[in-house]
């Protein structure tokens, strides 16, 4: 997905740059021609507008660029509370990754889990005991 959106964006900007360059060249040519005709005939040249192909190229390239940028944005977050909460419960970390697959920095799981884990009241001795028991049961080998 990222590669696709990057390619499209690059292509769009290339087209846009090309359109700008063509427009600039066109106006330069126009003014040069106007200057030469003015000296020859001294009649005011009609202000010529840009040719249609340059206009079309500009518009199309803008849309391609937009498409690439839109494809490259990260997925939108749910708006409703219950959908958002359900996403946290159902998908865990996976639901909150950006396009590159890294977990968002501000993802914190269930923000209310603190009410159940209560880190300020942690019973560290019990945790140590339980961990020691787990190691004795050979959990360290299983965990790896």
């Amino acid at each position: 997905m990222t590669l696709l959106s990057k390619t499209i964006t690059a292509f769009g900007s290339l087209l846009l740059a090309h359109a700008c360059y063509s427009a600039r060249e066109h106006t330069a040519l126009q003014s040069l021609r106007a200057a030469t005709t003015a000296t020859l005939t001294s009649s005011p040249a009609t202000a010529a507008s840009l040719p249609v192909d340059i206009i079309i190229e500009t518009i199309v390239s803008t849309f391609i660029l937009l498409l690439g940028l839109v494809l490259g944005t990260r997925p939108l977050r749910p708006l409703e509370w219950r959908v958002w909460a359900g996403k946290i419960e159902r998908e865990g970390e996976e639901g909150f990754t950006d396009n590159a697959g890294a977990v968002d920095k501000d993802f914190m799981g269930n923000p209310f889990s603190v009410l159940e884990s209560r880190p300020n009241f942690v019973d560290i001795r019990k945790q140590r005991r339980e961990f020691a028991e787990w190691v004795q049961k050979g959990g360290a080998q299983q965990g790896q």
Partner: protein
Amino acid sequence: MAPSILHPPVQLSPAAALALSQQAPAILRSSPSTVSSSPLNTLLSGSEKPEQWLQYENLILSCLRTGDDQAAHACLRRLVARFGNDNERVQALRGLVKEAEAPDNGALENVLKEYNQILGENDANIPIAKRRIALLRSMGRLSDAASALVQLLDFSPTDAEAWSELSDIYLSQGLYPQAIYAIEEVLVLAPNAWNVCSPTIAPDLSPMLMQRPSQIHARLGELQYMAASAPGAANGSSQKYLAEAIKRFSRSIELCDDYLRGYYGLKLVSKKLLNDGVKAAKQTDDSEFVLPDTHTIERLNELATAKLSEIVRHSAANDRGWRGYSEAEIAAARELLADDASAIKR
């Protein structure tokens, strides 16, 4: 994927805690050992990040748990060097390290005396007050812990964590009405917390999912015991509790789609109600929540069964987007469903 070091590591499994504490040397090496807070140094070395200090705190917790006391001391030294000895959080962390290393009860008593001394100098030192309560509870002095906690809540009544701890202490003493009252206070402070809604009336339904599946039946027995031995007329009040439980579980599902614990509890309660036979509630007090009729309860039961089996099926297949549930919870749900199925066969 290793769990993030920026979240409190209290509820992690032993394996995850081990993985975290094994990161400790690398983290300690990669960050500077002393950070000066003088403006000149801040200009030269870039600003310090608050995450770094959070990392140290959480590392201390998981290192102490896995017995890596050296790394815990190293982290603590850095926190002391940055925030000084008198910082309340640092004091609490130092106490935590001492508690963890205390070899016997005498040493614990000494730690407790230190806490009392600190509180004597400044009795609004909330981190130390919380440590003291946790230590009292850890030493088995539950009623002391409860009264200390009530004192703490007297001058800091908006502390949801403390209310929740109070409820847990009451629950471990078997004081269900008090536990329910305390958890309702939490609900007042955090009305959108979907995990708090469910334990409200059946306080022991939710923690049981934290335990091993085998312990669930013991917990369930406790619940039934609680409902049956509630003060007053046995049948009427137990019905009241169950009605309240249905309401709470439904609320937690309303707050959170596909909430496994909510559906689990809903299924347990509705099953019990259906088995016992529902009596149509006659009292029409507007304040009381009356039990819905049998048909509604049956539909709730069906809904919970359908949802639970969907969740279990998806996580058994390890589908994408369904991997957030913990394995113990899934196993418990599967057991409940299997129980149900065997009952139908019979």
